[in-house]
């Protein structure tokens, strides 16, 4: 018990003191995740909503592919990105492997199916008459889509936060194509992995605490929004 307690105390001290290595890992995690989630969502959310609302040809196949994409393990995504970005791979010349950009590429692949699938789920059950009404009122198709998206915005924000949560906690991509380089590509989860491997329990707990706080914040925002939507 003393071992656990000491670890917790050391971790809180590290967080309170603003340990530069922990702070930098926070920065890397947030920068990569926010970039990846933003880029992926810009396409994935309208795409998922389009699938749900308009049910285009082959939409079932597309929804199926999104769901498959949701359950691909992050190490497999990492492997794929590694293959493409490695010097021997097709994009080797870009010199992206073991950089934050490589993590972002991987996290976009991770985020896209989640955001798309959740947007589809939020719109599939929606009354199609909303769209039809908008259209008969003279709205263009993109305009109608935008109207619907704003109707379900709290569901979309929830989708965004879920995607954010998945990306900021992932380890496989960060290790495989980020390389866990200190003060360069070391993220919060890869810090935990690294410090545990060195046998430094306290330094492993500190980023864990930061991740818990971020998760709690995301959950709080989601809950606040869903209450807002109901009232």
């Amino acid at each position, binding site marked *: 018990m003393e071992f656990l307690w000491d670890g917790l105390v050391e971790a809180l001290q590290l967080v309170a003191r603003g340990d530069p290595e922990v702070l930098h890992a926070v920065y890397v995690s947030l920068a990569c995740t926010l970039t990846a989630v933003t880029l992926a969502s810009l396409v994935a959310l309208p795409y998922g909503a389009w699938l749900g609302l308009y049910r285009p040809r082959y939409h079932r196949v597309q929804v199926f592919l999104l769901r498959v994409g949701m359950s691909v*393990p*992050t*190490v497999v995504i990492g492997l794929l990105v590694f293959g493409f970005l*490695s*010097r021997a791979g097709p994009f080797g010349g870009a010199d992206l*492997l*073991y950089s934050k950009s490589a993590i972002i590429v991987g996290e976009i692949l991770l985020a896209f199916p989640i955001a798309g699938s959740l947007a589809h789920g939020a719109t599939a059950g929606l009354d199609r008459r909303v769209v039809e009404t908008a259209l008969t009122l003279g709205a263009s198709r993109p305009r109608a889509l935008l109207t619907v998206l704003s109707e379900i915005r709290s569901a979309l924000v929830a989708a965004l936060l879920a995607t954010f949560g998945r990306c900021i906690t*992932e*380890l*496989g991509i960060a*290790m495989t194509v980020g*390389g*866990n*380089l*200190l*003060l*360069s590509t*070391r993220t919060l989860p890869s810090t935990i*992995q*690294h410090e*545990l*491997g*060195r*046998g430094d329990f306290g330094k492993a707990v500190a980023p864990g605490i930061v991740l818990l706080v971020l998760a709690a914040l995301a959950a709080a925002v989601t809950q606040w929004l869903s209450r807002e939507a109901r009232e």
Partner: protein
Amino acid sequence: MATALVALASMLRRTVDSEATPMSIVGPIALFVVTLAAGCTRDGAPDRGLRLATTTSTESSGLLAHMLPPFEREEGIEVQVVAVGTGQALELGRRGDADVVLVHARTLEDEFVAQEHGVDRRDVMWNDFVILGPPSDPAGLRGLRDAVEAFRRIRAGGHTFLSRGDDSGTHVRELEIWERAGGVPEGHDVYLEAGQGMGRCLVIADQRRAYVLADRGTFLAFRRTLELEIFVEGDAARLRNPYGMILVNPRAHPHVNADAARALLDYFTSPRGQRRIGAFRVDGRVLFHPAGGR
């Protein structure tokens, strides 16, 4: 009971190493319960398992698979190998979670013994480090024999160097050489700290065209997939890598399996064990040289 706990711990460690999902926890716990049940039926028969904490190099090179089976057969002792970095292996000994350690970082080993966590340290064998780099050799190291001079040139030219950064024996050695070469290079774009195992670091160094210090065994195992070349080798003062075996002090940790640990130490340092170490080959090459009772 102890066996069951060890099995659970090692399974959980593997689970934590990969990303844990709720399902992947179920397996180890089920196994734990089964092992526990099996253990209870033995009427508390004495647990003869021996836990050896060692570095990844001895396990991944295949040396332990070569050395341990005859010992286990003859002594009737089952050896559980926990292969981690030298730092963590010693930490396991310090906490009494291992009975004997086989590591390579002399300064840490002496500290371990001085703090009375371990007793009876003995030289078992040695292998050697090599300095690797990209074929273009921007620092001009080819043909050098002096490791310190090589590091000095890497630092002076601002060339990229990849550090293990994980408190492993290799990392400790690297830092010792840096110290003599005037200190670790500054800047996290030229001095990369990976904090990963040797094999992973070789891949990163290869991709980033960085210089790297590696043990020869791991490099030989990875050579075919890498562009990296050996530039500096054979510096007996700096690049020789002695492995020591230390018994965890039974006075500090009364529950350790001291008799079995002593038997393993005797086996590795006996003429027969030493011959067996020297006979171990990977691709026809000797990886570990017997210490010869030095």
